[in-house]
């Protein structure tokens, strides 16, 4: 089987890797590039634990082939905390104890950040619908939703809720 040479951008930096034609972007990120933030929950696009952005669009990395990243821009949870400082979403998840086992958390952070960039002032309902593709088996969601709403308020106050 011919391995493919893929040139892409990951979290703003040029990156390249070799992958098999069938290998998912999730597998490549975790096992070739060494970015293990995106998690494999279901592997079939149901749980959202592998949420990443592909050219700015929220996707499940388990439903993308590594080869598809050629010439695109990938953004993962590793790029969310700028210069070692937690993003308000990450900080509020800690404050609200919006995580327990932590497997869903990277996907929640990536998906919630994408949600707030589209809609800086979401209602609770909008947060719940927006994160419907991110399953959490620990928290019961309430703490996650409160964390996202508080992070949204914080971002709006800081004028950085792009």
């Amino acid at each position, binding site marked *: *089987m011919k391995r493919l040479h893929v040139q892409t951008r990951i979290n703003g930096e040029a990156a390249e890797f070799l992958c098999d*034609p069938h290998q998912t972007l999730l597998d490549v990120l975790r096992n070739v590039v060494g970015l293990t933030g995106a998690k494999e929950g279901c592997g079939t696009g149901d749980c959202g634990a592998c949420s990443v952005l592909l050219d700015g669009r929220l996707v499940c990395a388990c439903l*993308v082939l590594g080869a*598809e990243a050629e010439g695109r821009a990938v953004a993962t949870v590793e790029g969310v905390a700028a210069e070692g400082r937690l993003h308000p979403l990450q900080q509020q998840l800690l404050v609200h104890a919006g995580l327990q086992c932590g497997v869903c958390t990277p996907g929640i952070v990536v998906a919630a950040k994408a949600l707030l960039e589209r809609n800086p002032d979401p209602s609770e309902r909008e947060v719940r619908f927006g994160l*419907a593709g991110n399953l959490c088996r620990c928290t019961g969601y309430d703490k996650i939703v409160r964390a996202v709403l508080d992070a949204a308020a914080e971002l709006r106050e800081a004028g950085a809720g792009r």
Partner: protein
Amino acid sequence: MSDASPHGFEAPSSVEGAVALLAKHGAAARVLAGGTDLLAQLKSGGRHPRWIVDLKRIPELMQVREAEGALVIGAAVPAAELREHPALLRRFPGLAEATALIGSEQIQGRASLGGNLCNASPAADTTPALLVNEAEVEIAGPGGRRRVPVAALCTGPGRTSLAEGEFVVALHLAPPLPRSADAYLRLIPRSEMDIAVVGAAVRLAQGPDGRCSAARVALGAVAPTAIRVPDAEAALMGSRIDAAALERMTLAVRAAARPIDDKRGTVAYRRQVIGVLARRAAERACERARAAS
């Protein structure tokens, strides 16, 4: 990896390039649009293509074009982009709402109309909405291009009339009738992220006399493919979409439904709720048509 796993990945930049690759690899190739079905099938072992031909580098498949009131939707345009397209929202709000219902935000980022149609699930949300808008499917293949009515594409669960080497390039929507509107509703037991137990799409037009001058009714998940229901349409034609006409339509819908028993619902339940849903979709389409006139 087993020997049956894919052996190659190609991402042609033109329809002609994709046709040539599919002709070369024959039955060993599968086209990839959003991948939300194909990659799940690779994972489950349901499909073993040796070659994957990604269609998303072909500009024609990734664009929504407007031409003299008609809308041409590239087969691989992601739902997240399509659901916000102003012309779709204005003229085909039912198709827009069906598109927005597919999966999560993550799935919306990838899933496409072409993929939803060609996966040929009887419960596909956008297929009934395409049927009531009498969409045409533009197909490319070794014999050139052809166009077929959307009703001719799905032939059974997971089966289409596409020949080997063919793929869908675009969906064509003719300008809607004046003073008409569509609507789509589906029933799922949760509030989000599920497969339709039943789905109903309706497009209605209102004549100058206030009576229904055109009616199209299509149902999902109550037959091996999505179906149009001519008797339900006849029940609405010429009426003022009043209670009696809606009741006749409801009965016609239930008579046409041939659902199965499965974990999502029984035959009796599906037949009952498809009537309710079609009626509500008709009422919604009627309100929209009146607001538009």
